[in-house]
């Protein structure tokens, strides 16, 4: 699986075991919330990087206390029009201070990428024959935004102030 991160295609170091029966014995792994609850102690003892993958009906409040353990939080878009993960991403970044990799998985498509980027995702499992091309297209769409999010882009209001 090739992910887009920082404008480049990268391989995923993590095995996504969240949908699997068994968690691999070793190596960086992404687990589901149920797997995390069931195997928390063993997973922490592994000493390998850990990730968690949440469904769109699992708010990040569920893992707020454990965020320090995760290098990756993957949020699902089961259908591209299920917009819950946009709120989850903002909460993770802006409320809970998560600084690890925030990965968009599921039906991740060109036309929604920039919303994902703005809400705090930094890694994208894009469903496309040419994910990098789609990424470059998406990020070039807008140079002005109205709403502040944690992505650091100046809003129109801030740009206006800069002028006066």
């Amino acid at each position, binding site marked *: 699986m090739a992910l887009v991160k920082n404008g480049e295609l990268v391989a995923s170091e993590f095995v996504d075991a969240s949908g699997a029966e068994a968690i691999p014995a070793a190596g960086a792994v992404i687990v589901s919330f149920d797997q995390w609850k069931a195997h928390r102690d063993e997973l922490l003892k592994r000493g390998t990087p850990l990730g968690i993958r949440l469904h769109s009906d699992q708010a990040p409040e569920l893992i707020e206390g454990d965020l320090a353990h995760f290098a990756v939080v993957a949020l699902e878009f089961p259908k591209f*029009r299920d917009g819950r993960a946009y709120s*989850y991403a903002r909460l993770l970044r802006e409320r809970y201070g998560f600084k690890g990799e925030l990965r968009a998985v599921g039906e991740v498509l060109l*036309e929604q990428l920039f919303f994902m980027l703005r809400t705090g995702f930094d890694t994208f499992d894009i469903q496309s024959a040419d994910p990098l091309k789609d990424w470059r297209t998406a990020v070039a769409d807008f140079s002005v935004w109205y709403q502040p999010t944690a992505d650091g882009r100046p809003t*129109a209001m801030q740009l206006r102030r800069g002028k006066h």
Partner: protein
Amino acid sequence: MYRYDEFDARFVNERVAQFRRQVGRRLAGELTEDQFRPLRLMNGLYLQLHAYMLRINVPYGTLASKQMRKFAYLARNYDKNFGHFTTRQNLQFNWIKLEQVPDILQHLADVEVTGIQSSGNCVRNITADQYAGRAKDELEDPRVYCELLRQYSFLHPEFSYLPRKFKIAVTGSPNDRAAVAVHDIGLRMHKNEQGQVGFEVLVGGGLGRTPYIGQTIRKWLAPEHLLSYVESILRVYNMNGRRDNIHKARIKIIVNQMGIDKYRELVDKDWEFTKNGVLKVPDEEVARINSYFAPPEYETLADQTEALAKIRSGDRAFDRWMRGNVIEHKVPGYAIVNLSLKAPGKTPGDITADKMDAVADLADRYSLGEIRVTHRQNLVLVDVKQSELYELWHKLVALELATPNLGLLTDIICCPGLDFCALANARSIPIAQDISHAFTDLDELQKIGQFTINISGCMNACGHHHVGHIGILGVDKRGEEFFQLTLGGSSDQNASLGDRLGPGLPQAEVPAAIRKIVDAYLVVRQPNERFLDTYRRVGIEPFKSAVYGEESKAA
């Protein structure tokens, strides 16, 4: 009115370019219809019975004459020479071609108009009192807050894929002309005990299959907190709204399911983190936007009521029009003039390209270049000199825009219905036309008094039938069009949902039913009692018997 600065202009142009790309991808097969649908909806483009329909925002109902002229240009060059004003102060064109939409949107962007988020599961056009900034009964012009909300909501990355649509309305007057109680968020401007202007915030109102009156989530909100508080309401909705059933996905469903107290608790919990953060509206931004809504340079004129009274006593038709369609202005010597798009037999809300141009010219000549759109599908010129009313009236008569029926029985709200809309069960426009033909006597209309008839062609209630004094809902009964009547609805500050009168009636019987209801009302009404109040006093029985006869007593 608000003018785009370089940032607003850049934003809308980038949006048009993005949609041009999206249309290209769709036509080339790179996007399926399922993937494309939300994208086109978020630019206002529906697929309807005959062609694509484009819905264009008129933010808080305020239009400049050059924008109206652009609508006329588009009607002539891209549609069939007319447009339709809707119950959300928007404009619709019915015969649009997908491949031409990017060009159309560019034309609109050139005059600072968009279709952005006029549809889709996102925050829709922010609507307001059509007399904002001019009405005597207003606390403050609410449009600065509408404009703040508009900018805040456009392409909000967190809220572009909500469970369902989200509609916000704002009133600056205690006399609610914006139907705020039946919106997802309603904002009612008022003063707290310290005399400070702020908003009562209502949440969870809405029409459609399961109508609800909005509930108060917060009694008084300081304007500086408007954006952060709205964001918290939206966030709780985005995370918790139902996504399993589109008929149960609006905020009104979860507010009523969990109760307003619980919803408030969740909102307040989120808001604690953000209320004093970056969304706090800085005074300088409010001042900047407010400067666009500053009242124009009015002349110092004497009140002309006496002079007008003389003309009125000599011209019955002018008198009728003055009585109904002309409203008192804040500023002496000026008046607010309603242009009726409800001439007998016409489609409510429709206006031809030629008349759009004519209205633009009248706005320039008589009303400082500005036009308002009402949610009852009429237009308004808000700054007319009293001394020019008589002259203006003659011109409006020639244009068939002077029907003196504002707020009366034939000032009907009517959705496009089965003649145009893919969602409809029945045709609504012929009903409106039949009723308007059955009540052409202007003296009778004035004698009958204040009356709203709202017609929807299906349960989606775009015609607001739940909140009409008489509501008419088109239903499909075994392939035939039938019409259910409701009585006693209201969308003002004492909002109520109408009560079902009885079984659906065939199209041919509807005008007669209206006549029977009116006759029954006239029999029992007290002096100066409008229909709604009579209904609330006497109940439904007299009207049930009138329409359905004695058999209904057994039912």
